[in-house]
């Protein structure tokens, strides 16, 4: 069927089991709200338009705490407002999904034009040292799949997951094929099985992810944005804070292989590898095909997990690549991470564009040819 990126996100959310959406109108993410306002009540779910983006994420966290998979969708200005409650979901370990359809910034910026300027904000936007999971998509089908993946990872690791896409992918319509017998794995949060009096809500486990009781199911406990002890009560004891913050990081850092996802396109023999994500990965793919036709050994590493950053994927392409090219619609946010991993092994080129237009295959090709 012919589907728009934003529509695919809405459908992916429903497939993942999302039954609550709270949002505030904003271009270019509004279609996600519009579709879910129609679809959610059909499946006994709830759609609510809140007074702002702060309230939207607050309601999403509340719904998740009451046991319903929940999501919100926004763009840059709204994402800035969400940073406060994003931090709450991280410290209180409440699963939820936030879609940020990136547009040009800063501030009101370019509401109807694409950009990729929120990569670092998605990583570090909320205050304090914290882990986060950020996914990306470059096709309409990926919008669907990565939304489901966002919910699964969020439920699995009790962490908010951000799906970072751009205006091009969100508003693009392309053919998507859904097979009748497609096996789509859906992960639901692990709940406590012990009697309530034995339940210690933030106790460490081998995976670092404690089972989560939903409000109203007989496990009465305290949830707070303050640093808390294993019972959930506020604490300022260094011997309790240290292990708690360490566990928050460990539950992500010890599961990189489950979280990280990338696509390697003709990279095995590539002397030059393009590292791209979102709509730029589409142009990069075209550029690789054209460069190969001209006889150049060029490949593409398409990042689908942006954070935690995929060090291992970059190291893999560095086995053959002498040149890495990182085209981005920002002033160089992922390229700095690439340089950090590269440590001088290969030459890292950047190609940055921040004028509201996409990076074209020919622009990538000519940058490659400069390096040849």
């Amino acid at each position, binding site marked *: 069927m012919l589907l728009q990126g934003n529509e695919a996100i809405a459908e992916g959310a429903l497939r993942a089991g999302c039954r609550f959406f709270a949002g505030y109108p904003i271009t270019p993410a509004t279609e996600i709200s519009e579709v879910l306002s129609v679809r959610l009540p*059909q499946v006994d779910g709830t759609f609510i338009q809140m007074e702002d983006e702060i309230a939207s994420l*607050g309601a999403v966290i509340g719904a998740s*705490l009451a*046991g319903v998979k929940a999501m919100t969708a926004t763009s840059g200005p709204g994402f800035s407002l969400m940073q406060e409650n994003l931090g709450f979901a991280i410290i209180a370990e409440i699963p939820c999904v936030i879609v940020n359809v990136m547009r040009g910034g800063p501030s009101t910026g370019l509401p109807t034009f694409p950009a990729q300027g929120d990569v670092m904000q998605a990583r570090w936007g909320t205050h304090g040292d914290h882990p986060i999971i950020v996914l990306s998509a470059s096709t309409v089908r990926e919008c669907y799949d990565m939304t489901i993946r966002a919910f699964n990872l969020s439920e699995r690791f009790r962490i908010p997951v951000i799906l970072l896409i751009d205006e091009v992918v969100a508003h693009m319509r392309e053919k998507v094929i859904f097979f009748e017998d497609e096996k789509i794995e859906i992960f639901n949060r692990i709940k406590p099985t012990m009697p309530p009096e034995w339940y210690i809500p933030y106790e460490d486990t081998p995976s670092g992810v404690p089972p989560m009781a939903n409000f*109203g199911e007989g496990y009465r406990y*305290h949830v707070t944005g303050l640093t808390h002890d294993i019972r959930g*009560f506020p604490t300022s004891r260094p011997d309790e804070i240290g292990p708690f913050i360490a566990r928050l990081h460990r539950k992500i850092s010890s599961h990189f292989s489950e979280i990280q996802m990338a696509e390697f396109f003709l990279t095995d023999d590539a002397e030059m590898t393009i590292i791209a994500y979102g709509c730029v990965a589409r142009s990069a793919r075209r550029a690789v095909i054209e460069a190969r036709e001209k006889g150049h050994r060029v490949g593409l590493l398409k990042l689908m997990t942006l954070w935690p950053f995929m060090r291992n994927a970059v190291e893999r392409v560095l086995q053959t690549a002498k040149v890495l090219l990182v085209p981005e619609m920002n002033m160089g946010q992922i390229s700095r991470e690439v340089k950090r991993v590269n440590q001088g092994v290969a030459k890292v080129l950047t190609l940055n564009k921040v004028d509201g237009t996409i990076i074209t295959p020919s622009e990538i090709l000519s940058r490659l040819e400069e390096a040849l």
Partner: protein
Amino acid sequence: MPEITKLIHHYLRHDKKFPHVWCPGCGIGIFLGALIRAIDRIGYEKDEVVLVSGIGCSGRLPVYVDFNTLHTTHGRALTFATGIKLANPNLKVIVIMGDGDAVAIGGNHFIHAARRNIDLTAIIINNSIYGMTGGQSSPTTPYGMRSTTTVYSNIEQSFKISELAVTAGAVFVGRGTVYHAKLLDSLMEKAFLKRGFSVVEVISHCHTQYGRQNRLGSAVEMMKWQRDNAIPVEKSLKMRPEELEGKILIGVLVDRELPIYQEEYEKIRERAKASAERG
């Protein structure tokens, strides 16, 4: 065992290390008593009660009580509560805020929650000051009073929280003081039983900050002020406007019926399903 001891044993969390954070003489303790008595009289199960708070002295209240408790971000308690209630309508969701929490940083959420008429109870403990951060002026600090950020005098007009709630569309609005403890008990019970967005404004005192900076005396003297300046709503109807100058009206300010969000949304679900069937 005296009744109060039974309530303490039943509702307070024994695994939480006391003492609590509030100053000796604080009004929040009196309010906590009223809250527990009202919940006990109605007979809610502890599992079905969710207590949600924001940030500040009032925000620390839920941690001491054995319900499902949530201590959210500053001013946002009502937004979290909205999500909880819509996700599980069987829960009794009670939101506790301070004056800065509810009508400064959370003012937008407050008026919209009232307008939406979601079945929640919002309680605002109004002590006219930011207590926890050390006595800065709040939106309910009266004109001409002193705080650590208005040492030369507060030049802003203050919000009247209950009147704001009435205008924004709350279906039940009551105001009490921590001096009038029995009235507070009955206001809370009425608010909990009311279907829709109910509000109780609790006039309290912060002798540690507001009282000290404005030379209003001890907790006892500040409570005497509440006794002498609160006028029951019924009595106020027979008084002239000049007699009511500087007084606070206590009792039920509004009790009305308006469409409730959840019930309206249920109709939307029916329409959505019918529309999906038609294709």
